[in-house]
């Protein structure tokens, strides 16, 4: 079981589904959510500052990322997240979770080394079991 995961999605129902499924299969102890890329980046920034205060803080071990979101979408988030600013977190793995069928999107995701999988919505317990074996 993971300790902490981050879910980035603007759709509250999708977030709810993720939470419920994760609890169901004991995928992670804790779940934090962000409504879009920017909120997620803010979350990591706050982690950075608290870490510099040498308080021990746990990092999310996995990110579920939606692509189409207002303010900052998934791709933009990945671009920022790849920067040196977030180098502390570049060992965090990312799962893209999207309803897209655009083949270019799947192709594009391969360019980001932290993205380990591209899964179609909705999230299911089977998917989580599969991910457990992969991580």
């Amino acid at each position, binding site marked *: 079981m993971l300790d902490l995961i981050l879910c980035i999605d603007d759709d509250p*129902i999708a977030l709810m589904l993720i939470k419920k499924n994760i609890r169901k299969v004991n995928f992670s102890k804790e779940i934090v959510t962000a409504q879009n890329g920017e909120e997620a980046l803010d979350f990591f920034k706050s982690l950075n500052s608290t870490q510099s205060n040498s308080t021990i803080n746990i990092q999310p071990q996995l990110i579920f990322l939606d692509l189409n979101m207002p303010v900052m979408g998934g791709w933009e988030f990945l671009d920022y997240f790849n920067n040196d600013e977030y180098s502390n977190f570049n060992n965090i793995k990312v799962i893209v979770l999207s309803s897209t069928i*655009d083949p270019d999107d799947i192709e594009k995701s391969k360019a980001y080394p932290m993205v380990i999988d591209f899964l179609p919505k*909705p999230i299911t317990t089977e998917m989580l079991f599969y991910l457990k074996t992969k991580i």
Partner: protein
Amino acid sequence: MKNKTSQIIIIYILTSLFIAIISFKLLKNFTSYIDCYFFSFIKDLLFIILTGLIFRFILSKNDKRNSLFFEDLKKINEKIKESNEKYDIVAKATSDTIWDWKIPEDHITWNKGIKSIYGYNQNQVGNNSKWWFNNLHPEDSIKMSIKLYSFIEQKTEKWQDEYRFKCADNTYKYVLDRGFLLKDKDGKAIRMIGAIQDITKQKEEENRLKLLETVFTETKDSIIITEAGSNENQIPKIVFANPAYTIMSGYDHAEIIGKSPVAFMGKNSDTQQIEKLLSAINNKTECSIEIICYKKDHSEYWVRLSFIPVYNLEQELSHWISIQRDISEEKKLEKEKEQLIRELTQNNKDLKQFSYITSHNLRAPLSNLTGLLNLIEDISIDDDELKEILTGFKISTHLLNETIDDLAKVITIKDSHSVHNEEIFISTVFKNIFNQISFQLETFKPEINLNFGNVVKINTNKIYFESIILNLLTNAIKYRSEDRKLHIDIFIVETYNTILLTFKDNGIGIDLDRNKDKIFGLYQRFHNYTDSKGLGLYLVKSQIEAMGGSISIESEINKGTTFTLTFKNQL
């Protein structure tokens, strides 16, 4: 001469008689008979001496005159001889046919040319003017005789004429005839001598050139001819331009001659193209370019022009011929077409993007619904009515999901970038497919006869290939006949890198007469089956065409349907 002689003799007799009478009279008056003999003797002596002197004078004068006269004759004779020789030489040397016409007698003689050039034997040649005139071409004879007679009547100064003269073999030769008149003291024409020159070759060449010239003058393509080269590294100067060029360029002929074709180009003319032309001219090679030129009124037009080197007999470059065509209209169309293609491509791209977004926006809430329904499954519900409602809810969601998935498939197929080929084993593919529909196969137990001979592998898109076969199989099962056991024959053969797949069933068939055009259309259903969405064959066709293949159908109601598919077996 005789007159002179008798004159002299008469003078001599008269003078002698006069002296004799004077002497006799003097003797009678002044002398006596004594001296008579002596005196008579003296008188005779004097008379003989006197007449001797007179004779000598007259004879020597005559002699002188005679020898002068003889000299003259001799000279004239020599001149005549020389002239005759010259005539003979010229008559032999000339290719002209000489005729000599004695007009009052109407008698004509011809020299050898009449045989060597026109083929007439001596006995075929008539000796009067009638024969001559009869051999003129009918179209030329009137004009010719009018000119000739007005010359003979000395109304005109000179005579020369061109006409067609008939040869012995009945063909006509073009001739140039020139002649002069001989007149008597009264100025009446008594003789005419002429020379006929065969100008058939020149005439034919002239006609040929005239014909060729019409190409130059009449063609709608502009043609200019330039000098061979230019010393200041320019396109050589124009020496000729045809009417089409003056029309195209708007310049007068005189304004064009002597200018370099560069003079008709301007600020929007592609300098690279001009450089290309210049280097071709320097290398003496053919060249073709497209370039903007300017008319006299400064308006632009597009020209496709070629430059072709022309060599003379000595194999030296003598000129350049440039054929030019106004392609402004073509260029305009081309531009419009490019613009249209650009717009269409953009539109297409936008539409594709739109369809992806729409699909995404539909799928996102739908996936939530599916997810929620999945969660409900684990919750036990006691209320029967709620259970029923939730089941209906679930079926509808499932159907909606399937439809949207199918539509999404269609969109991805149309986006042909996503076709990736791989080598697949036919036996594996079919095993896979049969696994996917094992439930249906168990239920309906169709007899499937699969024969792929020695075709073991296909290089194709695995997902599409599977989807196509799966669609055809489920269709065959869905539209089976209730009256007989379902038979399915699948044959695969390979010819010239093309895989031919025949898929034959003995099902209920489709009325192709009515539905020929719609059979592979989107949302076309031909049987009232609830689980039919009218998408299967449309998908099959889209997929096979995305792979560069084709599909055709033959069907007979209640007998069965045969699909013939071709795949490119690309390596």
